[in-house]
């Protein structure tokens, strides 16, 4: 596993069993109390109909809550949209940052740092604020972006109102927030590549592209995989605030994703059954996805040093 673990040889056996748990206790208690305990309770409550009130008895309804959710017309639409979100987000959260990281690597250090600092700024703006400003900028009637499009002689684009465009708008806004973070991580990984490897390749007469293809990309693979995983597993969550503030899942359900629809039908109305079932579906669904992805990675990649 780790260098550190190897070195931790033989303290007295009994204390050795107890000690790590002492160190873990604060974290385990916090996460257990505030996250896992409610989650476990959700598994149980997903089979009940209950309004949470102390005066009302939870009523056992079997799989009813799950059936209700799977019967939602929007459920399958949202599942489909979730895939679009992930696929659309990937170039913004991984590919573009990768290109920026490699491309700007050769820029002078000062301007490179300025650029990287600037594209990090969206990350520190609160999602609610960001959504509000963007809604204003993109408004078809008085928004600045459409004013610009108008002066170029085109018709106003209904960024958030046209069902065909809205989802891409949300994707770009989510990506806007992520580019800086991904770029930083990839730049870090890129900067950590041993320069002698690159020099050696250049000595062999490799072109710039060949260096990227044969040296940099393979060495950046684990970071790219990590970001890809994050995008697949968390992309739907990242878009949530934007969907909520900007479109509410509309128009015509074009921007709902699995996360939003379960929130909309489950958590926003406090029927414990719906929301618990929604929680279980989300957790198990993404848990399973994570399991499969990690399996695939283990199988198809060998660890680079």
């Amino acid at each position, binding site marked *: 596993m780790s260098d550190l673990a190897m070195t931790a040889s033989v303290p007295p056996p009994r204390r050795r069993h107890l000690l790590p748990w002492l160190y873990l206790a604060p974290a385990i208690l916090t996460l257990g109390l505030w996250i896992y305990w409610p989650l476990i309770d959700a598994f149980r409550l997903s089979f009940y*109909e209950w*309004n*949470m*009130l*102390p*005066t*009302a008895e939870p009523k056992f309804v079997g799989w009813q809550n799950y059936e*209700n959710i799977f*019967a*939602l*017309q*929007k459920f399958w639409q949202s599942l489909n949209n979730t895939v679009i979100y992930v696929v659309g987000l990937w170039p913004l959260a991984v590919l573009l940052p990768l290109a920026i990281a490699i491309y700007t690597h050769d820029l002078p250090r000062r301007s490179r740092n300025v650029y990287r600092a600037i594209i990090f700024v969206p990350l520190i703006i609160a999602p609610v604020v960001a959504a509000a400003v963007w*809604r204003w900028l993109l*408004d*078809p*009637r*008085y928004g600045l972006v459409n004013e610009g499009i108008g002066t170029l002689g085109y018709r106003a684009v209904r960024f*958030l*109102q046209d*069902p065909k465009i809205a989802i891409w708008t949300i994707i770009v806004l989510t990506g806007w927030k992520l580019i800086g973070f991904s770029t930083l991580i990839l730049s870090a990984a890129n900067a950590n590549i041993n320069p002698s490897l690159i020099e050696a390749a250049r000595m062999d007469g490799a072109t710039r592209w060949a260096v990227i293809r044969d040296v940099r990309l393979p060495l950046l693979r684990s970071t790219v995989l990590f970001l890809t995983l994050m995008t697949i597993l968390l992309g739907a969550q990242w878009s949530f605030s934007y969907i909520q503030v900007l*479109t*509410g*899942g*509309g*128009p*015509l*359900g074009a921007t709902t994703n699995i996360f939003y629809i379960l929130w*909309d*039908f489950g958590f*926003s*109305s*406090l*029927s414990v059954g*719906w929301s618990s079932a929604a929680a279980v579906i989300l957790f198990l669904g993404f848990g399973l996805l994570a399991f499969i992805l990690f399996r695939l990675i283990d199988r198809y990649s060998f660890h680079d040093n």
Partner: protein
Amino acid sequence: MNRKTFLLGTLASLGVAFAAPALSQSTPRTVDQKVTISYYNYNLASAGNGADATKRLIAQFEAANPNIKVDGVGAAPNDLTARVQADIAANRVPDVVQMVFSDLDFSVTNLGAVALESFVPPDELAAHFDGISPNGRKLGVIDGKTYGLAYTFSTPVLFYNADIFKAAGLDPDKPPKTWAEVKAAALAITKKTKADGLLTGIFGPSAGDWLFQGVVRSNNGGVMSADRRKLVFAEPAAVEAVAMLRDLYDSGAYTNLDVTAAMETMAAGKAGMYLQTSAVQGFLVKGATGKFDLRASTMPRFGDKPQRPNNSGSALVILSRDPLKRRAAWELMKFMTSKEAYTVITRDIGYLPLRTDIVNDPQYLGDWVKKHPLLQPNLEQLAILEPWESFPGPNYRQIQKMMMDGAEQAVFGGGDPAKAMKQAQDSAQALMPK
């Protein structure tokens, strides 16, 4: 220590409330000891006139009732019921709640809203009801009992931009009265100006279903049978209303914008007509002042059928279990639905007065109403107002969402309206209480 006794007290009173429904004897007639009640109000959750006016009203009430302290709790309208529910679950039962009308049924069947008749002596109740518009009072009645008194409520109003009307060659003194006239006017506007013809607040995530209900009802349709068991929003009359909206949209007369965008487009002077609750009036006036001539008309009707608007907004509801608190809550409710309070609510927050007799009374709204003609169509409709129906059962919100999803699909989605409504009705019917 304190908290424990409080919790025990609440629990005990809970026991009392549910063991003995005939509580009217035990509710005192006056509040003769110090008591603190909580008041859940969504105007307090935002900054602006609504919050200021509400705080002022609370202060006035406390000054007049030195024994009662009011603890104001703010939560956004869409989250308010959830908050109330969570607090009841946590054994902190709210005393007075400003409940959105679509949650009224739920608050009666699930949150333990108290019928006024069950604890207020009949003579006192009759005295308070005197002067209240009968149509307005009906809004808070379920199964013959008064659970809520309309507090901040209003009707659908057709706002229009008189300058755009002129530019399109329309007479701003003769606003369209029927949907057919609305369509003609909107098409004239889109043809001759760069503005949108018609915007509405019917659809959208935060729209709810109140305006939709009004449109459907005006075509003599409905959303639910009289016994509140069967959904009927896919019946021909309702579908016809939906198809009319669909035709408006297809013809280009009606532009589909979400609730906020529509409001802002109208306020920015870039739309001809806008059908929405009169509660947005303040916002529109702010945008229009010095820029364009904002006017208002009543909700459009279908041909010769009279329009049948229903209300939007909220009612005050009492949830207290403890007799003393219940009395204090009633005192607060009486104050908040008094002539003085409605004067403030109408003038400063922009809603309708439940007591119509203050409209022409110079002591209250008399002068103000004369200076603010925009309120007129709203007042006209108060006389023909019908209740905004709330769906029954624990899945009421999901049912409402399904209906609105279906209608949105029918109007903007391009499919067959009848089919879309039928499909929505069938899946929603499964969630109705059996």
